[in-house]
């Protein structure tokens, strides 16, 4: 059973995307990487449910691996 919600549940997708972009405004690359990492941790703690986090991580990882060029 899936605990992670991947259905579209955003009323304002453009605003959500923009919020992520705005957070990086004026940051150097290293700062931006830290912003991403801290954002993940804050959201992960907000979610609180290890199973949901593991499912999201697995989904993201599978998606990255799919992008690998074939050898």
């Amino acid at each position, binding site marked *: 059973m899936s605990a992670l919600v991947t259905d579209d549940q955003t009323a304002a997708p453009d605003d959500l995307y923009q919020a992520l972009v705005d957070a990086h405004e004026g940051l150097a690359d290293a700062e931006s990487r*830290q912003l991403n990492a*801290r954002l993940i*941790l804050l959201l992960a*703690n907000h979610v609180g449910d290890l199973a949901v986090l593991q499912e999201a991580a697995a989904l993201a990882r599978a998606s990255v691996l799919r992008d690998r060029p074939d050898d």
Partner: protein
Amino acid sequence: MAQVYEHPIFPFTAPPELLEERVGNAPVCVVGAGPVGLAIAIDLALRGVQVVLVDDDETVSHGSRLICISKRTLEIFDRLGASAGFAEKGVVWNKGRLFFGEDEVYSFDLLKEDGHQWPAFVNIQQYYAEDFLVRAAERLPNLNIRWKSAVVGVEPSSDHVRLTMETPEGRYDLDADYVVACDGASSFVRRTLGLDFEGRTFQDRFLITDVTMQAEFPSERWFWFEPPFHEGQSALLHKQPDSVWRIDLQLDQSADPEVEGREENVRPRIERMLGVDAAFEIDWISLYTFRCQRLQRFTEGRIFFAGDSAHQVSPFGARGGNGGVQDADNLAWKLAAVINGDAPDALLASYDVERIPASDENILNSSRSTDFMTPKSQAVRDIRDAVLALAYDHGFARRMVNSGRLSVPAVLDGSPLNTPDVGQFDGPIRPGAAALDAPVATSDGMGWLLHQFSGDFTVLLYLGDAHDVLPDDWPHALPAMVNPLVIAPILGPGVIGDPEGNVRVRYDLMPGTVYLIRPDQHVAARTRAFSNIWLKGALARALGNVGDNA
């Protein structure tokens, strides 16, 4: 002025096997007189077993090595009659501070509950620990310590193990009914049997030093991530007796151990930490990589592995030495009970069943600590650094910061020696857990609960303060190996009081509650409704009589 420990020399004396040119016999031979080997040899000897303890050296360890002695280890050493030196000499600490860069991220207190004889940790150099244990061992007439005696041959057979010893005066053979190999990470016994470790080796190198100096740092554990004096790495500072400080510095993977271990290269690193004006002497330098690994089994026929010969962890949790002493604590009473004819051979199988999960817990915790300190990629380092940065303001992130999850006694959940609870219980001291200490009243004044437990099994009955009437079925004579201890208002032999209510709370006691405590002070069983049948069943099960369902 700083004292300097002088290493004693324990003389070799030729054993009868050499003098009489014959093969020797021993019920148990313990190989290796480190803290684990000494603990198990003493424990066996106290239980009436004839023990030969051999060591290839003639003195105690060099360098501070294990340094952090946990509360549980202190309780075990106390039971072995070897704790006085630790109380006298050790540096007590309960507080840790954590720094990221130049700033303190947070501090923690390990033990702020009153009513325990021993603190969370005592720091002391391993040579002192071994020294105190050797002194306790030397008092036991049935414990024969043989220094400068190196095992150079191991031949297992069905009813004994033949060990060949090399000594300054020649070789001899000793046939031991059982062998306990406590001969460390590079165990000769293990290699001779061709047994391999399973686990991980970490690439990062750590530089470990003992430094003598007069300094004002408090008795606290200080850990730095990326300190200004040691860029990009981690560092740990611990106080020890005799104005000796232990400093651990993480080096990167490319560090050349031969070069980095030279004093002229270590000194500037310490100066960057302590300041160029600091006056200090370097007493000991060690460089190593971490391994988190264990044997698949700790028992091979009549040979048992305990401590580093069985498993290794990275040091940032004090789980190596303290885990090894818990191995000794677990094995000694079982081996003695089998040798003395009080338990079937099956009891010995429970050593692996109980200590392998404990070892895995230590390996898991120390692997995670090491991973936190040594991120394996830039992205992982980003997450690690983000945890440290958020830790200033957020409790959830502080709980993720991992500079070592410090050793706590293993709870032997799922052990076949445990009897399921009869009745509802709250509290952490469930079957499999090590008994918790508490102050108690005795007819000789205030004392400690753990001191009231006998070396064998203890059946602890709580009567509360209203009654002094024993349960209907309370036996006139308890089974062999079981000693009674009653908590009641009127003190006397075998009857103690709980004036502060600590025992009642810690063990969730009600009038009539009974606990069965094992010889290693772990809880075997507990009940709200005592009966003789329950006691006999729980005892049989705790002695490894499999299939006995009480």
